[in-house]
């Protein structure tokens, strides 16, 4: 089974045209099918099928003037999707962290993305059941990170509910949800972190604690 098959990332190419942040999350559908003791079938399904939240499109006023995506695309990436080098702990919340291909189906001719590099990690049980994903994106130099309107615009487009601000270790994080998932995002320097956790997993805060320690 290829890496791409294991982690199918669906990207809404049309939205990329406006400048976009890629958000990838585990499937809410397979989480819904699981129980407190997930059946082997459910686990298998969960490890092989993933679903993307899609795209967080940046507010159009801010996408203008972004630098063009680099022409030299790393090998394995079918489009202008430079992978980002990020060091993570071996485990988060006691679960195994694995590096995933952030590019997947990432194909776009868009040249004004807010993010110019991304990294993607999976957080799995020893059985390979996918519990969470952590995506790290680096904002392009032109992204106006000092503008709270820009940041609010990014946050407001993640998830399907109004973001709730939380203070953890002296830093704000923003929690929202989409069906079957809890999404938490935060900024660190020029980087955006998005953690997506199954909303029926009972140790999400432990994963989040460890994810907060990740530094690009």
């Amino acid at each position, binding site marked *: 089974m290829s890496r791409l098959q294991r982690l199918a990332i669906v990207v809404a190419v049309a939205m990329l045209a406006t400048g976009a942040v890629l958000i990838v999350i585990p499937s809410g559908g397979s989480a819904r099918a699981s129980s407190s003791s997930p059946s082997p079938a459910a686990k298998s399904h969960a490890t092989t099928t993933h679903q993307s939240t899609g795209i967080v499109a940046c507010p159009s006023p801010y996408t203008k003037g972004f630098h063009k995506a680099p022409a030299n695309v790393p090998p394995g990436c079918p489009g202008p999707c430079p992978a980002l080098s990020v060091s993570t702990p071996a485990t988060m919340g006691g679960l195994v962290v694995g590096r995933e291909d952030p590019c997947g189906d990432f194909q776009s001719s868009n040249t004004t993305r807010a993010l110019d590099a991304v990294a993607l990690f999976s957080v799995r049980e020893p059985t390979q059941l996918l519990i969470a994903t952590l995506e790290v994106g680096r904002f392009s130099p032109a992204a106006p990170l000092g503008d709270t309107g820009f940041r609010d615009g990014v946050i407001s487009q993640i998830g399907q509910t109004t973001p709730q601000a939380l203070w953890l270790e002296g830093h*704000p994080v923003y929690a929202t949800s989409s069906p079957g998932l809890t999404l938490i995002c935060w900024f660190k320097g020029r980087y955006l972190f998005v953690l997506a956790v199954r909303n029926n997993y*009972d140790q*999400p*805060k432990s994963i989040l604690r460890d994810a907060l320690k990740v530094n690009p």
Partner: protein
Amino acid sequence: MKRALSLLVAAASVLGMLTGCATKLDYRPQVQAIIRHTEALARTYTYKMSSGGHTSTVNVEIADDFRYLATYARDGSPEVDEIVRDDARAVQVHDPALLASIKTGGQTTAPTTAAGTVKPLDATVPVGGFVAGKTAVSPATVASLQKGQWVEDSSGSYTILRPASLSRPPTPGADQVGDALKVLADLDTYISGLPDGAVVPFNPEAGYYFKALDPFPRPAAGTQRYDVSLSPQLPGRSAVDDSPGQRQAAIPLADYFLSAAVYVRNGVVVSIRESANVALRLRLPDQDIVARLQDALVKLPAGISSLSPERQAPIIDQALNKFYAQHQDPALVQRYVVVDFSQLGVQTSITLPASPVQASLAGIFDRGQTLGGGS
């Protein structure tokens, strides 16, 4: 010309002072920013609420929005301790009477699961305050709590999103620990619902200040006090038309009786005083609470209008709460709350108790994610 202008300004100032209509700027954003800044800090504080002849005290230590410790005592007697550290929650009950209303059943052993499990999707997190939850809980859990043992649930606080419906508890005092934990957030929410001019700096010289309406202490040197809804104004009673619905709508809700003082030093909240007091509002001129109730055909004793505000207050309190109950509005709980912060910004270590009984705490004083959650 200059002289005429000076006279005009002086006359306007005097008129403003005489009528109590001195200009009030909108300090809500400023005070809310200070409250939110304080919420971001690690903090230790004491929350003390006096109501109905009892005093409840909650000592709180908050490391961040996922980690806190709260100890609750009533009239000096310890009631319950609670520790939340990320996904885990631990509870120790000192007063078994608190458990009397909790329904047990369903399972004969503590239904705990190993940390790191995927819960069935129909597992709901009961919410609703510091009272018996909606879920029938394990008799074994209750038995351990009745013995005064610490019970720890490794996933007893796993929800990250705060339930939107719990931004303010329906009845103050029903969940003392929740009230204490959310004191800053609730004050922020309360201020958001107030009109322009409802938050002003304490200024005993200002035309809008009435000493007889102020139940709060003066600020210490170096501390700025902001008054919140110290003298609210209801829409004129004469503007209410004759329809029964309009007359009932002219009766103020419980929040009308609430006022607060926020004490700020070095840009953070160091103290809060809160008062819900009917007699204070009855002293306000032109509010006509008694007449409004009579307009809405709420039965009041004959001759109540001739009583002093202090003697009217318990009667009005009773009549209002009956009215609120009929209309499913939040109850009015007369109270005086004192909150004193310390150790602001000083990191505190929240640790779970040693050797607790491991069991599910679902349905035991379970309020979901309590801190944070603002937009």
